[in-house]
């Protein structure tokens, strides 16, 4: 449980972090909460030669109300977000999902930016951010740019971030009146990653479903949307249980879930249908 030797650099600003990343290239890794990176390093599955510690950069931990949206600093702790009053009021699904991550010790250290940048498809916040159509703000040597959630997760532990870029914020829309949400996390123990997780954000429209956005956790190499479900739900009668169940049958379309000691891909596909149905029902009832 001792990592291979590495150099340690501490960045006190985003500019300094980007500068260090530019200097060291893909030999460097950013260290925030460390709860994904450090275990990998201790097992020597990750061996970065330089760690750039961004954990103490000021001003990146708040939730700001920007009108129609909230801007969440990349260094906001998962545990703080689970309890954040503004987030709970305007984007309850993200607060709730953050409360489902790991255990209290993990949530106290882990950051939203770290969770997102790690690109782990089994992590809870990414699929929720996908269902929210969130926007990611990144800073690199050339300045700031934004990336849509649908373009951000590019592969297993891979994101659209360049080696010399740092994620600085995540923007999520406020969920207005008429919208309901649910996050269904299925796992064997409270501390486990999801076997399958389902994020549902549903817009109600006079007894019908105006639109639905469904995010899937751990159903492929990246967090995924479930477009088949979303299309089948659009315009459906919200009280028609059979129609909702039928829509949920589309959940595994286009997914490639893993098989591991917790469950086979076949089981996960079936589980996704049940969880999507339950998520949509709960979202409509909320």
């Amino acid at each position, binding site marked *: *449980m*001792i990592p291979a030797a590495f150099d340690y650099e501490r960045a006190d600003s985003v500019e300094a972090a980007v500068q260090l990343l530019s200097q060291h290239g893909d030999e460097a890794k950013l260290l925030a909460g460390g709860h994904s990176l450090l275990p990998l390093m201790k097992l020597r599955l990750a061996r970065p030669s330089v760690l750039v510690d961004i954990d103490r950069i000021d001003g990146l931990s708040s939730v700001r109300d920007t009108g129609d949206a909230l801007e969440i600093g990349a260094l906001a702790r998962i545990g703080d977000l689970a309890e954040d009053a503004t987030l709970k009021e305007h984007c309850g699904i993200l607060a709730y999902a953050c409360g489902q991550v790991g255990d209290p010790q993990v949530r106290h250290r882990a950051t939203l930016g770290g969770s997102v940048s790690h690109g782990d498809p089994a992590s809870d916040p990414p699929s929720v951010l996908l269902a929210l159509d969130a926007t990611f703000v990144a800073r690199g040597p050339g300045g700031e740019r934004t990336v849509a959630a649908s373009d951000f997760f590019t592969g297993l532990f891979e994101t659209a971030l360049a080696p010399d870029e740092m994620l600085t914020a995540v923007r999520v829309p406020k969920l207005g009146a008429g919208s309901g949400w649910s996050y269904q996390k299925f796992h*064997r*123990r409270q501390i486990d990653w999801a076997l399958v997780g389902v994020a549902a954000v549903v817009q109600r429209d006079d007894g019908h479903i105006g639109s639905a956005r469904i995010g899937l956790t751990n159903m492929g190499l990246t967090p995924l949307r479930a477009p088949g479900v979303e299309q089948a739900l659009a315009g459906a009668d919200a009280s028609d249980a059979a129609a909702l169940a039928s829509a949920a049958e589309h959940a595994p379309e286009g997914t490639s879930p893993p098989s591991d000691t917790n*469950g086979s891909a076949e089981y996960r596909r079936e*589980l996704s249908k*049940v969880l999507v149905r339950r998520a949509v029902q709960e979202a409509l009832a909320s």
Partner: protein
Amino acid sequence: MAVAAKYVGTSVPRKEDPELLTGQAKYTDDFVVPGMLHMIVVRSPFAHARIGSVDVSKALAMDGVVAAFSGEDLAGDWAGPLLMAWAVTDDIHNPPHWPLTKDKARYQGDGVAVVVAESRAAATDGAEAVDVEYQALDAVVDMDAALADGAPLVHEDFGTNASYTWTLTNGEVDKVFAEAPVVVKERYVIQRAIPNAIEPRAILVQPNTAMGDFTMWSATQIPHIVKVAMTLGLGISESKLRVIAPRVGGGFGAKLQVYAEEMLALALAKRLGRPIKWVEERSENYLASHHGRDQIQEVELAADADGRIHGYRMKILANMGGYLMIITPGTPLLGAFLYCGCYGGEAYHFECTGVFTNTTPTDAYRGAGRPEATYAIERAIDALGRRVGKDAIAIRRLNFIPAFNEPTPMPGGLMLDSGDYDATLDQALELIGYDDLRAEQQARRERGDPKQLGIGFSTYLEMCGLAPSRVLSALKYAAGGWDAATIRLSPTGKVTVVVGTSPHGQGHATTFSQIAADDLGISVDDIEVVHGDTMLAPLGMDTYGSRSLAIGGVAVHRAAEKLVAKAKKIAAHELEVAEEDLDYEGGTFSVKGAPDKARTVAALAFSAWTAHNLPDGMEPGFEETAVYDPANFVFPYGAHICAVEVDTETGEVKVAKYVAVDDVGLVINPQIVEGQVVGGVIQGIAEALLEEAVYDENGQLLSSSMTNYEIPAASDVPSITIGRGPGLPSNSNELGVKGVGETGTIASPPAVLNAVIDALSVYGITDIGRPVTPERVWRAIRDAKGGAQ
């Protein structure tokens, strides 16, 4: 108890806790000695591979690395292989097991080289630089495959992967089965489990090169046995070795072991003349500490048409892993007599074959053999009930051995001490609210609720208090089962109780203090308990098999009685009366009819120290030792009832209610007993629902960390309701105590499985594999409904 109980039976706060809760307790890794080196073992990544060259030169060239050795390099350091103390049959195949393997790696994690460096980090880097040439061989993981013709051989010299076959037969088994109108035949697979103590193993060896002696600190359950094993393995005189088990953070059987790392640390301390420390990494715990369970059971019951059992026939395959460790072959035999549970009958056959595979060796894990036996009979009796149309309660009550308070025989051939199996079942039914639960179950069934309810039973019987030495001899175990206690009073009446048991979480200091305090009439606060040090407590057989109270506790009581007897002589002498004229109560001797003429034990201890006025011929001093070897085991029993909620859509199983009624005889400290029961039940529920060591076909351990070996946390387990039953004292010892350390893991898994099967009975399901994962439930329901859509 001979005297009025002031402390026994009360929840005296644990004397251990202040030190543990304030972080002042010292575990092995907390000890740091000057000049200490750190050891890392290089382990085979292959489950089965021939070892070619082992090149340590790159490691030796690295900063901080002091030494590095292959198995071949150290071959001359050993006086003998690792200790295997239980050759269960005369013709057992027992391979030599060296601390580092020289020829082949036989499981993933088998040690092939060792690196010693000035820091743990340097040793880790050095271990990475050792170059080992492996020639991978086909691995065998599954027991049936291991016994098939042409299987890869774990030990080629034997020509087979079978280690031994051990049998036990009572009565006319074949006749009973031939004549029985009902024979139930079941097959159960008990998955492999991995013990996870919160403190991993750890060792520190400090040599005194001038004197040629060594002190070893080890996170072990068995310092006394480790000392003997080290003597045999390294040829060091026993008088030159002191083994200390300081505070030890749990064991669950995995520290009832003598490990390669203990031999290696001692050998390297001897070679290098410097202290050597080794601390197990958690991932090593998964690969290189022994595993538990792993049996395939063929279970047969022969019964009347109404379900009364007459015969038991059990055929067991037990996975040994790659080598035989200290009691690997004997572990299944600890359950050999208990496959009849608490039920009657005339005929009994048990047969167990130990099988070598390319997996981590198995050995004792909390319950050791008895959970396996209990699982077999408690599942099978439900199957019998289904067959003859009786519910789980009726089939049990029909077959219970009737209540008894005198030594009573049972089909497995043991003499039971005391039991009232209906009484514990009655109490459990009441505590769980049985009728309401059944009504709720029926309501859910009628409305087709996706969440179905199931109720499962386990009316278990176990044997513990290991063990009568003569019985151990008959079973071919190499050591005895006695234990010892020395009690010493200081001149001012303070008490030191030195015991041979070696606690690692059980609360011996508190429990034994309570016994001694009542016997001597002294406050528990004035008693210190010393344990886990072969120099301070040289006599002992350590802690395992729920033996510490039933053996060690009785030894404490007997040592106290010896002191009371000596005190009585001094008191009679000082008070100038005959011993018969003295009353003794609460630590005070008083003259019958003249209670003002009195002496306390504490005052008499002072008299024994000054020796100014002792009876003629009496030796000064106030210290007595008792060594207690029991004549029989003790037999805790009880009834566990589990109610589960099964989500029939996802397959998720949640324990909704759990009641454990355990009659463990006289209870010394109710709070400690409750902790043992609750902890054990949770561990057993985890075996039923969560934990499973999974190997792939190449012998790679897939469930190799806490992220995928599913140990529950507090948030994953229900609250447990407990009851004590009638509290019948054991007649195996004069305290009337039984054991409680293992009841939970022994009793609970079949209660959970039976509950799941009860819930799924609406689909006609009568069996499911363990652990009951959501996927297994989902598949069982899908298959019962007619297969994949």
